[in-house]
């Protein structure tokens, strides 16, 4: 199956499935400045996924922010600073906590789950979950411009859904995996050497998705030369050179996004 056909099929499947959102207010995460909700949506599969939504108090519209899931069993609820400034939606993909029925991801194990074919690979559904989250957020009437942040799940989401002004990417999982296989993949290949793995992973290569990104992009890395092919493939990208002084990095990354989405930068460290 061609790259385009593969991903068009994902979009078609999502288009056939109504999201049927359910929002439940969360009083413990609600203040005079924002209201928080637990959210459930139907994604490809069909599979019911989860997310945390927070909406600032006031008439709006507000900038929107989609936080795509990290690699791991738990996603943090969005930070107070994001809740103050954005309509922020942190989407949880299938297999992660709160979206782990009927599929509970294993760690280690998720990265290679179903990797024997592109159709069975778990990340087909995980990308669909992120796309569903984007559709849910972008459809809200109380938002104007929108940003998306995360790893290559954010990049693929920005490539396949219009409406994002800004994309901030760090530590893409699927980038140059044949050059530096992550540990889970190396373990899998040791036991199951197969060329099919590379075929599957090629559908998720962020360099192949990059030309579709319409958003201004910030790529955070401590190795600009390693990421040169990705930066070159993105239509409008700049590199943020990570220093690993992470408070300073966090502030720099926050300020970049805030500038693109028209809000004030904020530091998580209260000085």
């Amino acid at each position, binding site marked *: 199956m061609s790259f385009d056909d593969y991903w068009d099929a994902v979009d078609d499947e999502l288009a056939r499935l109504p999201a049927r959102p359910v929002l439940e207010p969360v009083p413990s995460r609600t203040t005079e400045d924002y209201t928080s909700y637990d959210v459930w949506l139907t994604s490809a599969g069909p599979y019911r996924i989860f997310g945390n939504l927070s909406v600032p108090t006031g008439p709006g519209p507000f900038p929107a922010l989609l936080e795509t899931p990290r690699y791991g*069993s738990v996603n943090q609820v969005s930070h107070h600073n994001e809740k103050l400034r954005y309509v922020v939606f942190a989407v949880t993909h299938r297999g992660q906590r709160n979206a782990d029925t009927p599929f509970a991801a294993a760690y*280690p194990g998720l990265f290679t789950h179903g990797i024997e074919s592109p159709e069975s690979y778990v990340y087909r559904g995980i990308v669909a979950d992120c796309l569903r989250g984007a559709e849910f957020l972008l459809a809200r009437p109380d938002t104007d411009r929108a940003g998306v942040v995360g790893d290559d799940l954010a990049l693929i989401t920005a490539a396949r859904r219009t409406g994002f002004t800004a994309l901030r990417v760090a530590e893409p999982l699927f980038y140059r995996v044949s050059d530096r296989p992550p540990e889970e993949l190396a373990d899998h290949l040791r036991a199951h050497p197969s060329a099919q793995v590379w075929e599957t992973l090629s559908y998720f290569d962020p360099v192949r998705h990059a030309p579709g990104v319409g958003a201004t992009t910030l790529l955070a890395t401590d190795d600009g030369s390693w990421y040169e092919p990705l930066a070159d493939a993105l239509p409008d990208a700049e590199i943020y050179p990570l220093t690993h002084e992470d408070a300073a990095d966090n502030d720099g990354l926050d300020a970049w996004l805030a500038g693109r989405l028209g809000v004030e930068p904020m*530091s998580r460290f209260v000085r």
Partner: protein
Amino acid sequence: MRDPEAATIEVPRPADFDEFWAESVAACTALPLRPSFEYAPGLSTDTVAVYDVRYTSYQGVRVAAWYTTPRDGPAPYPGLVTIPGYISEPDVPRRWSELGYAALAVAPRGKLRSNAVFDPGYPGLLTHNIVDHHTYGYRGFYLDVVRAVDVLAGRSEVDTSRIGLQGSSQGGGLGITTAALRPEAIACVSAGAPYLCGIMAATRLTRSYPYEEITEYLRVHPDHAPLVAETVSYYDGINFAPKVRAPVMIYLGLEDDVCPPETGFAVHRALPGEHPLHTYPRCAHHAGLPRVMTVVEEFLAEHLAPEVGA
């Protein structure tokens, strides 16, 4: 402007703190460990053997861990228990065995591989039964790490005089509590950005998770504040620190929004004797990572003497 090193962090110490934890450890150790070690060929390499471990801990809960040993080299090896962070699952600690350690990466109850009968969720663990120190969710969680030390000490290929603890954030905090509860068994602790120290003060110093969980809990249960403060005082690393006998290396990010540096300085001050402290300006919860790992490895090697490349 904050001055974390100069800040005063006070944690009341319950009068029955020592008795509570002595009873807790006794209740736990009264249960046979019944450890099982199943070789994991898919995770093992030419240089490191990996085992899927289960053992019995507090209230009979079966707890999982990954255990790794060097393939070659002279046993006994120094032992290292690695303790996970709040939201992370334990990594298979092969890297430590490549450095010569027999390493046990514990998944305390509630982590994915140990959540069959206790699963408070994330967020959730920090506030699970937080109004009662007897039933607080962290009681078993703390003891699971203590029993992990016992599992490691029971291995014939481990030198029981050279067992260390390593972790960051929750792993750092529980390194300190475990060293206090097993002072005779622990040779050294590497604790990065220790969590669960100065707990109530931390909720006032940050809006970041996990401490934000307590802030949220008190938003809907403001009348529980005295009970919450009482409960967490039994679990605060600052109250455990005076019992630690092993050298503890602490490293802190001076702009850590997750575990405020004030609390890290406070637990360092509460340790008896001299202990190395490394601080990193402009750093947050990574607390100097990745470059601090070289310092961590050197500290552990100094006290545990692995035969590198064995």
